[in-house]
């Protein structure tokens, strides 16, 4: 089953190509965001104890959640749900908690860009407020956008999809055999003998 897509992806996503001026503007805003601390601009703060996620901000969680729904429409394919059954966002959150500071800052910047990039095209709607269909169109358009948009989208997709498909409950759908050593009763050989030479 494929999604209905009668228009060019960029149009469907409402993502017009970046002009030189808007690219410079975006770069400048992004630069400011990075140098002044994305965390502060993006409202990062300590998560309340009750929250399930401790390493990403609420705003970041919203972006990642929308992105996950857009990339992994699991319900339509009889797969375990990408959020309610498989802890994709929780896995991402854990991974984010172990990121080096530079990587963490880059991710914050990337999510910020993803959230606000479609503002003009979507009458100032943020990515996280789009419905799933439009969010998917936006992701596809970003994948076919400028080099940094492609890079950002690929990186986010890798982060999200890795943290979904790593769960063994998704493997049946792929007919993937998963871990086998124990199931087969393969004996551990231990250390190789000390060489004579």
């Amino acid at each position, binding site marked *: *089953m*494929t*999604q209905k897509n009668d228009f060019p992806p960029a149009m469907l996503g409402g993502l017009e190509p970046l002009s030189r001026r808007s690219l410079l503007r975006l770069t400048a805003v992004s630069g400011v965001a990075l140098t002044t601390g994305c965390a502060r601009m993006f409202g990062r703060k300590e998560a309340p104890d009750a929250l399930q996620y401790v390493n990403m901000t609420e705003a970041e969680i919203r972006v990642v959640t929308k992105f996950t729904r*857009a*990339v*992994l*429409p*699991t319900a*339509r*394919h009889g*797969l375990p749900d990408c959020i309610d059954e498989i802890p994709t966002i929780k896995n991402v959150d*854990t*991974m984010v908690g*172990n*990121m*080096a*500071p*530079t*990587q963490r800052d880059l991710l914050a910047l990337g999510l910020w860009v993803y959230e606000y990039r479609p503002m003009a095209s979507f009458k100032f709607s943020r990515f996280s407020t789009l419905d799933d269909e439009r969010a*998917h169109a936006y*992701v*596809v358009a970003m*994948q*076919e956008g400028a*080099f*940094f948009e*492609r*890079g950002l989208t*690929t*990186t986010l*997709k*890798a982060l999200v*999809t*890795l*943290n979904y*498909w*790593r769960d*063994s409950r998704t*493997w049946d*759908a*792929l*007919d*993937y*055999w*998963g*871990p*086998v*050593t*124990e199931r*087969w009763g*393969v*004996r*551990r*050989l*231990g*250390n*190789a003998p*000390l*060489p004579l*030479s």
Partner: protein
Amino acid sequence: MRLINMQREGVPVTQAKDVARDPTLGRNFSIQTDVVIVGSGAGGSTVAYELAKAGKRVLILESGRYWPSAEFTESLGDTLSTVYRDQAAQANTTTDVLFLEGHCVGGSTVIGACVMQRPPDEIFQRWSDEFGLKALAPRSLDRFFLKTQEHLNIGLNEAHEINTTAHKVIQGCEKMGYSWRPVTRNVKNCALTGHCLAGCPSDRKMSALVTHLPWATAHGARIFSDTEVTRVLMRGGRATGVEAIIRDPDTGTLVSNVRVDAQVVVVAAGAIHSPLLLQRSQVPDRSGQLGKNMAIQPFTQVLGTFKEELMGFQGALVGVEVDQFLRSDGFTFYSALAEPEQLMAVGEQEAGDEHINFMKSFKHMAGLNAFAIDKGQGSVTWEGDHLTGRKVIRWSPSREDFARTAQAASIAARIMFSAGAERVWLPSFEKLHADSVFELDEKMARVSYGINGIYSYRMNSFTPHGTCRMGLDSADSVVSSDGEVHGVSGLYVADASIFPTPVSSTPQWTVHVLAQYVSERILARDSSHFVS
């Protein structure tokens, strides 16, 4: 006659938790030894074994955690986030090239694909002719290659180790008239699980975890894990030891500061982290080449989807190599399709329904990985002070690298189509696949070099090398023909960073060989290094 005891399984390792529990050590302690080795991968473990066997007191410091093979889960997703450095996200400054390496006791030998390749003689001839390294001339290292072959059980894949992915590659090569051969691997009685990249839980991969490290400890070597060496200590032009920090690997909290006083320091932290350590330590760098000349052997994966169910992930991970282009173009191709999680790191995998359908075709896929020689124009730099600074990895494809990658991907795609693939997925940052060989060139032409090749083809690296290159002349190399850092007596480097030039072969076998060679050179200067 000396009686040597070796434990049957596992390696005796002092971990952060052991240090924390030992009241005699405290927050600051020091250790005296003959040789301290930084890193426990192919190079470090080999040197440790050779020097311990020769009667030296050896201490190995490994920044990664100790994972006994019994704890390997065969889940690549879990392994990427625990055993690989930086959760497998160690990247260049533009974050489009991943540098995948093991961050654990045993280093990358633990998570490698077991491929062992001996470089062609031309490489060693060049090292001899251009760099004056006569000791590395063709055939001079034969005895080390043979010894490693014997120690690590290196041999050609047998028929049962050629899986369906490999058979598709063979079929494609036969139709194209390309030369192929079974891969040479360091494995003993392979269990054919296909989980090499997640570590081998049954100890069949002849990694350092089951070879040089237990052998070295049997000869008295000691290993500390969770121990990050912050700098090499030097006095009067001599290396005198190292400073290190032991951290709890779960929380990152400091457990102890340790100073090691040693007569010889061997740095074997790999081509990224060895130069970083030397830079942090402010070793003399007369040539200005420290951290430069990094070749990465960029690899790309081309996937073919076939009509029939291949279950191409089953069996030995790497079956055959296509060696047709090794000498002429510097390409090597390996058949391999790893776990589903691996697909996320090698190409653009669509979104929405298309992504799900792509994943559901996993059982119909075969993979062919192209490794290309590059120009060695990358670099690694430590920025900031030795405790709070950060690593910076710079590598972007030159136009030549870009063109070579495109050519390699094109060849791989043609092999897949010749084998009957209905669709070939190309390694790009944009959605790119071809449904017939006739549209291949047009599709590939869509990938442009753009700005410095950033986010063009999806390239990653398992095998960086050359960042502390070896040479006779201190004006253009970092280490001498003995592997000793120019200008610092008793400070040696023994890993892929000392390769004088880029190579197109997988480097692990050569690293073991050069580590044996460096060990021999250290022992040859016994009287000047060791006071006993």
